[in-house]
């Protein structure tokens, strides 16, 4: 009897904490999104869905932009991270953990400061563009800040380690005997990569995509610091509605829409890739 109770007693404090402060808040968010009213008149629960329609009507450009930026960020991070993870896993030798440590270095600096550092580096007359302009290598009104490139660049920078690590772990796990077997069966290097290495590393890519796409699409710090009025993302809208305007129902509706869109994206992506890989990635 005591044995059977043990796991429940162990899990209870943390499980309750997660139930009250993670699961219930999601329900609370949907509940608030169906309320009507304002900060002055007070909010009443009316089970109305009209905020959802209003929000989609008003803010679908920002929502689509966020998904687009998230997608661009994810594709670029895969292209940047894969060769690096591959090289460290297969050629890193004794210094594998040192390379991983160096890749994780940015995490020791506050996310906001990292992004402000890029704002500083990319400033119109800053240490990079200022010199390029002095040397007449770029035109006087060339700028990077307040363009989609700056925002996507910032997102790629901030989330790249989340892509490198899972891909590295998946590659590192591959039994090197498989590569030899493939070579013994007369597969050349390209064929071995395509038929052996790539399929086995896909769970890592899958984990990396989730860890990158979701926070990138929902981010508003990079758009706020590196972007301009043309790069407003859905997170910026939610932040303004919730914190500056106190339009809680509208903001909750928008936040729910974003969550639903991302969940749907992950679900479709998981179905396309096959459920087994999802579970593998989850277990790993």
């Amino acid at each position, binding site marked *: 009897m005591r044995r059977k109770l043990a796991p429940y007693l162990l899990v209870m404090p943390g499980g309750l904490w997660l*139930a009250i402060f993670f699961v219930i808040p999601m329900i609370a968010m949907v509940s608030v999104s169906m309320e009507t009213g304002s900060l002055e008149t007070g909010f009443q629960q009316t089970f109305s869905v009209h905020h959802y329609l209003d929000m989609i009507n008003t803010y679908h450009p920002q929502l689509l932009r966020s998904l687009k930026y998230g997608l661009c960020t994810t594709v670029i991070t895969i292209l940047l991270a894969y060769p*690096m993870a591959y090289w460290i896993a297969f050629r890193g030798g004794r210094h594998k953990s040192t390379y991983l*440590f160096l890749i994780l270095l940015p995490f020791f600096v*506050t996310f906001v400061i990292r992004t402000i550092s890029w704002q500083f580096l990319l400033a119109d007359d800053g240490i990079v563009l200022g010199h390029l302009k002095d040397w007449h290598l770029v035109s006087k009104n060339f700028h990077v800040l307040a363009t989609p490139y700056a925002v996507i660049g910032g997102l790629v920078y901030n989330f790249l380690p989340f892509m490198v690590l899972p891909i590295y772990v998946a590659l590192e796990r591959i039994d090197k005997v498989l590569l030899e077997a493939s070579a013994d069966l007369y597969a050349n290097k390209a064929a071995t990569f395509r038929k052996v290495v790539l399929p086995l590393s896909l769970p890592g890519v899958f984990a990396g995509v989730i860890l990158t796409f979701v926070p990138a699409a929902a981010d508003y710090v990079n758009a706020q610091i590196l972007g301009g009025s043309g790069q407003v993302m859905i997170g910026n809208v939610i932040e303004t509605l919730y914190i500056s305007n106190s339009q809680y129902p509208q903001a*909750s509706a928008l936040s729910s829409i974003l969550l639903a869109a991302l969940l749907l994206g992950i679900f479709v992506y998981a179905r396309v890739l096959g459920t087994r890989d999802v579970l593998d990635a989850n277990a790993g």
Partner: protein
Amino acid sequence: MRGALSNGLLGRLYTWLVIAWLSLPILVMIVFGFNDTKGKFNFVWQGWTLRWYRDLFAIPDLTTALRNSLTIALIVTLAAAVMGTMIGYAMGKYSFRGRGVLNLILFANVAAPEIAMGTGLLSLFLTLGIPRGYWTVVIAHIMFDIVYVAITVQARMSAYDRSLEEAAHDLGAGAFTTFRLVTLPVLLPGVIAGSLLAFALSIDDFIITEFNAGTMQTFPLWVYGSSRVGTPPQVNVMGTLVFAFGVVLVLANTYWLRRTRKQAQAVAALPI
């Protein structure tokens, strides 16, 4: 060219290039903490100074914000380490009804966007009429940190041999003694790694914190606010110190792990 490729020289060059790119903003942060800037903006290099290290605490609001961040991270790490370790240990050792649901919640917590967790929690506090401030941020950080400790400890449990506990039990050790002398030493590297991660995530968190802090300021919140009007060099210095502290802590932990592993290998090699 082919020779360079097969030697992995190109791969090495590429890897170091990306690492350099990743380090560039860090370098900027550190160097401009020594900039002898005169005006309000810390944009142009004006010579070396240690002034900002001396006047580190000259901005009272910034100092309060940093102190809030540090104390919150400390409280959160302790709470999350205890509750997260319990979950990770139970998930690694037992199979029980509800384990699948718990696993799903852990996965959802990692996968969910921060902004949804932040607005959700704020919705709950608004509905219940709880004022936002220091303790609501503590609650929020514990919520996401429990998960990271649990996952780290659970991963460590897969390397855990359950027959060790049975052996201890057969040798007459009670449940508590077994846990203290057998289980905990095996789990400890996982608990420490999870706690370091929890501390780092708490001190760095911006999005969930912004939604649940009310008027209370943490270090990232203050810096974000200042980015519109120009960040003072003290921010660079504090960022540098936090960075150095984190790096030293992780290196010390790695060194300690290597030493204990070597000792274990030495013991295992003894001809008994």
